[in-house]
């Protein structure tokens, strides 16, 4: 669901860069406040590589196809590192495999990165909101919510951006219907990513619980 070059107007692209700049600055500031800011860099690097590769795994859903995004997973596991990780991953995706574009890099990073931060905050609420649940269930459920909502919110932003930017000459009805279909196609994908995030988080919880603390 990367938005390629030439779909959005210059103003929207500039606004995307502004939002991304702000979010990157905020994320880096939060990272710098951590006792050891570089401690999570290996984890972030490896997940950036996973994010970079994930978008080449296609799942055909007519009329187009969807591919794994993993932004919710990055948010859950990386916290504030998720935003720079997604920004860098998207830059390389645009450059190397042609997903998205350079003019729309800001828009795409905001579209996928901000829901990732949301996913992080959802996951962090597992001990307060999920008090009534037992331990593995609680972590698993909030990991699922983070993974699924991270993608779901990104798909909603995509839907809104495209619908608000349909060129006048296009048959708006048909384009709206097509975008809606594509967005609905992301619901099963959100489930897949939620399940995948849960599996990864439960695995990490078992073998290296300190990774999930940050």
């Amino acid at each position: 669901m990367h938005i390629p070059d030439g779909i959005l107007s210059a103003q929207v692209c500039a606004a995307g860069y502004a939002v991304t700049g702000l979010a990157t600055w905020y994320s880096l500031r939060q990272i710098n406040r951590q006792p050891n800011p570089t401690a999570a860099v290996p984890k972030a690097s490896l997940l950036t590589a996973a994010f970079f590769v994930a978008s080449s795994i296609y799942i055909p859903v007519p009329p187009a196809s969807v591919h794994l995004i993993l932004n919710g997973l990055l948010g859950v596991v990386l916290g504030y590192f998720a935003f720079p990780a997604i920004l860098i991953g998207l830059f390389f995706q645009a450059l190397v495999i042609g997903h998205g574009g350079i003019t729309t890099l800001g828009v795409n990073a905001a579209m996928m990165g901000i829901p990732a931060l949301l996913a992080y905050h959802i996951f962090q609420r597992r001990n307060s909101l999920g008090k009534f649940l037992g331990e593995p269930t609680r972590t698993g459920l909030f990991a699922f919510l983070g993974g699924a909502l991270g993608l779901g919110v990104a798909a909603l932003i995509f839907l809104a951006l495209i619908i608000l930017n349909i060129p006048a000459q296009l048959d708006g009805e048909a384009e709206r219907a097509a975008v809606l279909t594509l967005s609905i196609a992301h619901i099963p994908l959100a489930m897949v990513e939620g399940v995948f995030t849960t599996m990864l988080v439960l695995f990490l919880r078992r073998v290296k619980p300190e990774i999930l603390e940050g």
Partner: protein
Amino acid sequence: MNVRLSLVLGLGLVGWGLPVLAHGVVLEHRQVGSVEVVAQYETGEPMANAQVVVYAPDNPTEAWQQGTTDDQGRFSFVPDETLPGSWEVMVRQAGHGGVMTIPVSAAMADGAPPGEPDEASDSPARAEGTELEPNSGPNSVISPRTSLSPVQRGITIGSVIWGFVGTALFFARGKR
């Protein structure tokens, strides 16, 4: 998900056919140069029922023709022979798509000798035509990327991934 639009130009086969007269019915045929646009996703899936908007060179802001691609992602149109220049074709579907420029020369209109629709001919411009033939090779709106061969792309992807892994190893090397 990006879109690859490849373009095949059916070259100008323009010439007046002989009128057939019989019992007051006039039938005539005329062959004109048409342009066929083929739109497909990067995965090779055709962009079926995608919207197509054609812009004439004299008015790049107003649609000259609109339509949709067929099941195979194909769309054909016959450019107005009196308007040589760069025709623009926009293909859009669900937020995916692109714009490409199709050079159309007046030679397409000026009684070119008949022949088979010609794809990717490298023949030099005809002597009579001062204008060049329309670029008949498959055209692509994302040419910079498609110019990478699969091997080059594989190496690039490998290097990028190794860059991330290397960064991870560097920071994970532990305290000395």
